[in-house]
């Protein structure tokens, strides 16, 4: 919070009791004096409403051009937030804080634009009437009888750095009004305006405005005193809990809680209880969710839903667990008998709250609970209930001779239970009601009439009916509870499964893909993931939905502001996706969900997404950490290689160079004295050493080409015999004195190879065999087809390989140490390996029985379709 405040721009609100008091004028005057002091001021939005004084004032400022766009057929002008952020003035003027932006703008409300500007470090001047303050909403509608739709969260007002009250006496305002100097929004009926601008209303509003300003000043001093260490707020340690129900009171409850908590300077909690059988598609449920979101937005310390059937107990235990000192609860006025029959939640809480204070807010809102069960009603199930009834009646008729009617009533109760469990509440009630009639008709004397001789049966039937209702209530409740816990179980299972799978993921991409799959399955929604950096979207895992350009801009906003955006949020709600930034130790990108047409994500879904994203970021953090650790190892490894390379190179290049230079110099100096034979020796050594140098350079260049990936294999079909033939011809001189035997079957199929490179492999391996040979000068090449490969072995009777180094010999710069006789830079085998692997073959080395080494490699056989 502190750091956010430090970088945030300053907000000054020019606050008034009603339109026409001169807020805009005052704002412009204040801005003018700032500008005169050299502050970079720009007008974001100022409505002149045709007033000449205001208009003249504006001319001294630069005005940000409006953004034009069309929505449907309508061309719309709106504040251009991107341009403002780009222009980044020191101070921007944003008239009418509570303004609602046109659909298609980034934020639905201007105050959200202002928030973003403040977050970007831009100072903002704005204007606000008291009736648009969310916390004043109830008071204003009481005073004026008008419900204000455009409201600004109280929190922003409280957090404003400065509130300047623009106050003129009520009489003066009325005078200005009669002179037509006050703008009354187009479309507002004259009568409504007349109703609003009455002297009583205006006086009450003025009082309200004065009080809110005073409270703000109060808060300011508190803040100052806290800074100076003179004051500890909330000494009482109050914590307030507001219980949000599903009726129309819920919003009012949130506002009240905010008000009380701000005057007590106490943190507040908002709690919604979700009971079994709650239908999430219901309006009432959505109202509850909205209230919860509003609480969160208005600074509730925590706003959450708890799943519990006993609402009273749930509230009390939550309160105790969270150290709540005050509970705020709503209560609709209803007939007393209803409390008496159904019990009252409020009574229950008050009776059991102990030391916790309970504040009850009343309202006349209708409870919408009744409607909640309509979806349980199913004609088919009712039909089954009737069929069941018929079956039980038949059964009853069979037993009639053996049992009294009172016993048969008991049998019907079994039917009620079965209906309740299998078919639901309504069919069960139906069964119970119909069974009363059936019992009377079929079993109670006189039978086949709806009358009865023995009046005591009325009591039996009434008791049966009551019992049935109770059973039905309990059984259906139980059923739903089971269903709910089953769903919770599934949810837990989903998270558990994902956690386990993510633990095995080694690549970021697979972790993201796994998470997407699980979200898609759990929420039944289309999803996407955008890998992003500061510049924008780098990569989308799935296809974009909606207008790509627009959707991307939402993604960028969510990424840069580290806040969710898009559908269902306050930022660009018209986007087709909901964008959730994925941030762990670093920002990874944005998760996108595409909610179904017209259905916002529920708080539940939000909670699930949050959990999913948390799991994903943990996995991504882990993966990134291990990758960077791996990178570190690779870096170290290549550092080691570089060192080996340098020492190996300097040795291997210097030796032949020294020999060449030395021989040449000696020749030059001794040209007249040295015998012809000795001269010949020197020249021979120059030739040999330059050959050696040439091989070294060639190997080095080849390997570099391979490692930088600059080698494109030019594959052609060849008979390997041809390549062996040409290799042997090239090595003619090297092989003098050696016996080379080639064992190859005549019917050998062709291989698909880059002939020049494979020739190189043969050359290197044969040269290798030659240079490590000892007394016995022989090289054996054998070629045979095995499955889809041709296998080539090149063996010698030389020194053989050191035990356990059969693999390492293919490493770069590996050389067999043989005293002071290094045989090259250890590049030849590395190149062979690169070439063979590049062809999709394998290469290995082992020692031969009876001494010597054998190198074996394979190459894939050519198939016609290779071309």
């Amino acid at each position, binding site marked *: 919070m502190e750091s956010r405040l430090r970088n945030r721009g300053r907000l000054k609100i020019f606050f008034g009791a009603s339109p026409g008091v001169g807020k805009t004028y005052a704002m412009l005057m204040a801005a003018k004096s700032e500008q005169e002091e050299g502050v970079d001021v720009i007008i974001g939005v100022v409505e002149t409403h045709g007033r000449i004084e205001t208009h003249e004032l504006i001319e001294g400022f630069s005005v940000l051009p409006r953004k034009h766009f069309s929505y449907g057929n309508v061309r719309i002008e709106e504040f251009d937030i991107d341009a403002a952020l780009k222009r980044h003035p020191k101070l921007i003027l944003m008239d009418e804080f509570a303004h609602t932006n046109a659909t298609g703008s980034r934020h639905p409300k201007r105050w959200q634009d202002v928030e973003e500007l403040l977050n970007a470090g831009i100072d903002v001047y704005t204007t606000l009437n008291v009736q648009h303050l969310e916390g004043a909403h109830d008071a204003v509608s009481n005073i004026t009888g008008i419900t204000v739709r455009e409201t600004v969260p109280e929190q922003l007002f409280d957090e404003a750095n400065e509130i300047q009250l623009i106050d003129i006496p009520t009489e003066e305002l009325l005078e200005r009004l009669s002179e037509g100097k006050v703008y009354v929004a187009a479309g507002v009926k004259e009568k409504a305006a007349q109703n609003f601008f009455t002297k009583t209303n205006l006086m009450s509003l003025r009082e309200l405005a004065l009080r809110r300003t005073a409270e703000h000043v109060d808060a300011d001093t508190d803040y100052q005193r806290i800074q100076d260490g003179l004051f500890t707020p909330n000494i009482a340690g109050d914590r307030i809990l507001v219980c949000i129900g599903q009726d129309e009171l819920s919003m009012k409850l949130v506002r009240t809680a905010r008000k009380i908590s701000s005057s007590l300077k106490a943190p507040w909690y908002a709690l919604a209880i979700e009971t079994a059988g709650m239908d999430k598609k219901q309006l009432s449920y959505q109202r509850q969710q909205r209230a919860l979101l509003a609480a969160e937005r208005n600074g509730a310390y925590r706003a959450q839903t708890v799943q519990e059937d006993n609402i009273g107990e749930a509230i009390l235990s939550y309160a105790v667990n969270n150290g709540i000192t005050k509970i705020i609860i709503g209560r609709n006025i209803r007939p007393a008998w209803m409390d008496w029959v159904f019990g009252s939640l409020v009574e229950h809480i008050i009776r059991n709250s102990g030391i916790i204070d309970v504040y009850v807010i009343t309202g006349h809102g209708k409870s919408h609970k009744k409607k909640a069960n309509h979806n349980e009603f199913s004609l088919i199930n009712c039909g089954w209930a009737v069929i069941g009834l018929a079956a039980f009646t038949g059964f009853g008729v069979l037993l009639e001779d053996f049992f009294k009617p009172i016993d048969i009533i008991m049998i019907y109760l079994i039917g009620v239970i079965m209906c309740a469990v299998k078919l639901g509440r309504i069919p069960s009630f139906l069964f119970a009601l119909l069974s009363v009639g059936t019992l009377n008709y079929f079993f109670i004397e006189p039978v086949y009439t709806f009358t009865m001789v023995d009046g005591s049966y009325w009591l039996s039937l009434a008791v049966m009916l009551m019992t049935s209702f109770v059973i039905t209530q309990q059984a259906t409740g139980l059923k739903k509870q089971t269903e709910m816990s089953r769903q919770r179980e599934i949810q837990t299972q989903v998270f558990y499964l994902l956690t386990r799978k993510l633990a095995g993921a080694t690549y970021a991409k697979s972790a993201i893909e796994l998470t997407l799959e699980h979200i898609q399955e759990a929420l039944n929604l289309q999803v996407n993931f955008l890998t992003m950096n500061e510049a924008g979207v780098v990569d989308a895992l799935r296809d974009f939905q909606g207008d790509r350009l627009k959707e991307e801009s939402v993604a960028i906003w969510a990424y840069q502001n580290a806040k969710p955006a898009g559908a269902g949020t306050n930022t660009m709600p018209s986007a087709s996706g909901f964008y959730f930034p994925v941030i762990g130790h670093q920002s990874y990108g944005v998760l996108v969900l595409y909610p179904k047409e017209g259905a916002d994500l529920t708080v539940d879904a939000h909670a699930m997404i949050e959990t999913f994203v948390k799991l994903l970021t943990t996995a991504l953090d882990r993966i990134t950490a291990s990758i960077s650790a791996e990178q570190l190892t690779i870096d170290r490894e290549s550092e080691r290689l570089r060192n080996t390379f340098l020492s190996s190179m300097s040795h291997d290049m210097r030796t032949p160079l020294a020999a060449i230079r030395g021989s040449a110099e000696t020749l030059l100096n001794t040209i007249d004295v040295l015998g012809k034979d000795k001269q010949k020796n020197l020249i021979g050594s120059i030739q040999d050493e330059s050959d050696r140098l040439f091989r070294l350079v060639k190997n080095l260049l080849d390997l570099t080409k391979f490692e930088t990936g600059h080698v494109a294999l030019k594959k052609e079909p060849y008979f390997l015999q041809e390549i062996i033939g040409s290799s042997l011809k090239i090595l003619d001189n090297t092989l003098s004195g050696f016996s080379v035997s080639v064992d190859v079957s005549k019917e050998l199929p062709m291989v698909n190879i880059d002939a020049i490179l*494979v*020739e190189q492999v043969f050359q290197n391996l044969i040269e290798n065999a030659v240079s490590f040979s000892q007394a016995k000068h022989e090289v054996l090449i054998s070629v045979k087809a095995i499955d889809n490969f041709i296998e080539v072995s090149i063996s010698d009777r030389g020194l053989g390989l050191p035990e356990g180094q059969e693999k390492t010999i293919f490493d770069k710069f590996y050389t067999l140490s043989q005293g002071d006789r290094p045989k090259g830079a250890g590049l030849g085998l590395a190149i062979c390996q690169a070439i063979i692997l590049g062809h999709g073959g394998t290469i290995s080395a082992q020692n031969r029985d009876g001494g010597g080494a054998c190198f074996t490699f394979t190459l894939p056989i050519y198939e016609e379709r290779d071309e």
Partner: protein
Amino acid sequence: MTVAPRILIIDDEPEIRQFLEVELSYQGYTVEIAETGALGLKLVNSHPPDVVILDLGLPDMDGKDFIKSIREWSQVPIIVLSARDTEDEKIVALEQGADDYLTKPFGTGELSARIRVALRHRMTGQKTMKSYLRLELYVDLERRIVKVGNEDIHLTPTEYKMLECLVMNAGRVVTQATLINHVWGKNSQGNSHYLRIYVQRLREKINDDPLKPEYITTEAGIGYRLNEPDGTYIQKID
């Protein structure tokens, strides 16, 4: 008395020029030097040489363009020198009309063999040879005779065409594309798969072991070369 054949060396590396000049003069040729492609072109024009040795890595012009422009008015044999990493350029150069190539670093033996072959083609006044004799193998293109020792060899038309192409260019490298065009026609889609199979059959018929070829040498990745016929020295001095 015969006039010594004139060889034009076009190379920008002084060391290479020096070594070539010394070696070739010693072998009895008249050597001329050009440091740039432009000068080379001028010299080919003013003093037509018998053989041109051209480095493909000239700084002032692309070796392929050089060959192309020379081929517009002269059939002088061109031997290109290439570094190992200009494999592709080498093939293009051959297809543009260069007669043969040498990969750096090369030995003097190889060099003189190439020059010998080039000169023989030059001296006979034709670009192509009509007959071939080496060891046991005798080919007479005019009479369509192929013999190994005293035995007549019967070749299929495809095999014969292939051998014909190699004989006409005896001693010189023949690229795969040239072979395929000669055997199957200009517009045939080159299929090196068939080429290998026919070369294999041809080798079998003329008794040539691909592991130790006496007649047809494989130039990996480039093409084939029918080894120099016997008795070339006699022809050269002629």
